[in-house]
């Protein structure tokens, strides 16, 4: 059985040489379309303004302007360096906080028997119906009355309590092997000890997958940081990029370079953590 399966698979997949070539041509054309925006971004980031806006379109700039790389950081109108730093702090703390809070709650709901656990679980499920983006007005009202506008607290804390992430952790822990925990219990660990010494170390793949997705979402978030970051010193990089588009003077190569730099951390995540990312999406995108 196991030996025949790959063979039949090969046979059904193997079209003629023609159809296989056609397949690769079609896929490559589609891939080109997907790469064009990245090409434009890199090309423009390393060009001079006349080369971006001029009549004579060249595939690549005649002289690659490596000096452009530092320009966003020296720009007096928008403090790009500060905004990158804000994004980094917010992205990391958002990820760590969400994982901590939601995994503990998910574990309780999945594994600690308690009379009212089901009622509480329904209380969490109800929040899945209302995406936080839709309630940004009331959330802003609350956060501003706490005096958290323009602060890391305001940017990070309201986003930590994701019903969906808690739900995912609960589903995951429901499938976690009971034997491992029982062994920990025999060794005299309580729930807390077993969680940190046995459950978490054996779930690192799942944690990594959720962390990757949470970080990407945190880094790319725009609406909430826009609402909270009233003062430029509290802007995240997304808000800073957005401000470039409404500025009076448009400095093309600087804007494109800033955008390219803003994507770099995530490109890093993609190149080195793609395994977890894909796994995370397959797990989080759909339940059931």
């Amino acid at each position, binding site marked *: 059985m196991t030996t025949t399966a790959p063979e039949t698979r090969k046979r059904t997949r193997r079209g003629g040489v023609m159809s296989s070539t056609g397949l690769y041509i079609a896929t490559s054309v*589609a891939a080109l379309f997907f790469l064009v925006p990245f090409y434009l971004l890199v090309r423009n980031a390393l060009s001079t303004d006349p080369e971006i806006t001029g009549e004579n379109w060249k595939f690549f700039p005649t002289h690659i302007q490596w000096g452009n790389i530092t320009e966003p950081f020296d720009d007096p109108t928008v403090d790009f360096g500060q905004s990158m730093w804000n994004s980094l702090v917010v992205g990391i703390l958002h990820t760590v906080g969400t994982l901590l809070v939601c995994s503990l709650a998910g574990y309780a709901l999945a594994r600690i028997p308690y009379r009212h656990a089901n009622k509480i679980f329904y209380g969490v499920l109800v929040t899945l119906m209302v995406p936080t983006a839709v309630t940004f007005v009331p959330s802003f009202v609350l956060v501003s009355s706490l005096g958290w506008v323009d602060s890391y607290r305001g940017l990070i804390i309201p986003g930590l309590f994701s019903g969906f992430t808690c739900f995912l952790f609960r589903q995951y822990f429901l499938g976690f092997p009971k034997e491992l925990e029982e062994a920990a219990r025999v060794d005299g660990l309580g729930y807390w000890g077993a969680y940190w010494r046995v459950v978490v170390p054996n779930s690192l793949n799942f944690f990594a997958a959720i962390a990757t997705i949470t970080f990407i979402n945190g880094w790319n978030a725009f609406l909430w940081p826009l609402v909270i970051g009233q003062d430029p010193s509290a802007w995240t990089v*997304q808000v800073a990029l957005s401000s470039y588009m409404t500025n009076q003077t448009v400095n093309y190569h600087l804007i494109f370079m800033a*955008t390219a730099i803003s994507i770099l951390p995530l490109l890093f995540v993609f190149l080195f953590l793609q395994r977890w990312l894909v796994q995370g999406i397959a797990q989080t995108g759909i339940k059931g």
Partner: protein
Amino acid sequence: MSTTTTRGLASPAPAEVTKPRPRRGLRGSRTFNFWLFISPFLLGLIVFVYIPIIWSAYLSFFEARFTVTPSDFVGLDNYRDIFSDTQFTGSLVTFTVFAAFIVPTTWAVSLGLALLVNRLRFMRAFYRSVFFLPTACSYVAASLIWKMSLFNGVRFGLANTVIGWFGVDNIAWLANPDPPWYWLVIITARLWLQSGFYMILFLAALQNIPQELYEAAAIDGAKPGWQTFRYITLPQLRATSTAVVLLLLVAAYQAFDEFFNLLSKTTWGRPPLVDLYYTALGQDQNYGKGSAGAMVLTVLICVVTLFQGKIMGFGRGDESR
């Protein structure tokens, strides 16, 4: 204390005692542990999710400009106000048009990409990564590339350069609502950003289709290609397809970033969240009316997600602990 010891002595079966109930006092108790694990999350959920919604429901019945502790009760005036506001009702129309375009196109493109990638034998990981890469981009970054370069309204935008080769005049893609070319800009941007994500979901589903089905079909004389796609692949993907459509719908409902950045300050093409942003946080700071709008949107999205829950079976089938 004494009662338990006597009962322990009287009981003949020591197995009862090994049930780990109160053996180690408070720290060993399940109730204590349950609350220890869940209270940080639950507190946050109440403060940052439940309270804002309730507060907002309250505000929606008050005249509240520049204040969040209003005293002027106005009944349903804010709701009357928001429904007679053509900007708000127009935003619901905008959302409907947007969803009608973006949901089917993303569904088709991501399924198409998944089918292509799934059939590749060499360089599959490479092509998958290429299609997946735009997921790393933020909506803001994509808006910037689309607005400043790809669909720049002046001659040097790539789209205008390309149509220039065919002798077509420059098009002001975003600056002019008639004809509404801005839809092309918005749809292509979102298509680029999210197709790869849904492709991953379709790929996972495609790989779960039992190969035997195709073998059986081949024995029955089905031609590989359209026939097997129509009668095997598509029906086998039904659960994933339904989920993808509903996820896309909810995502479209929350569209904000690209509309806000591509069409800054224009009066056309405003989806609900952008309209709400300008109502509540714009010049007026009209929290009462903004809250009423948020309530309306919340009810609408609840209806959609309840429907989604029905179909996807959220929380069902896991009572078997």
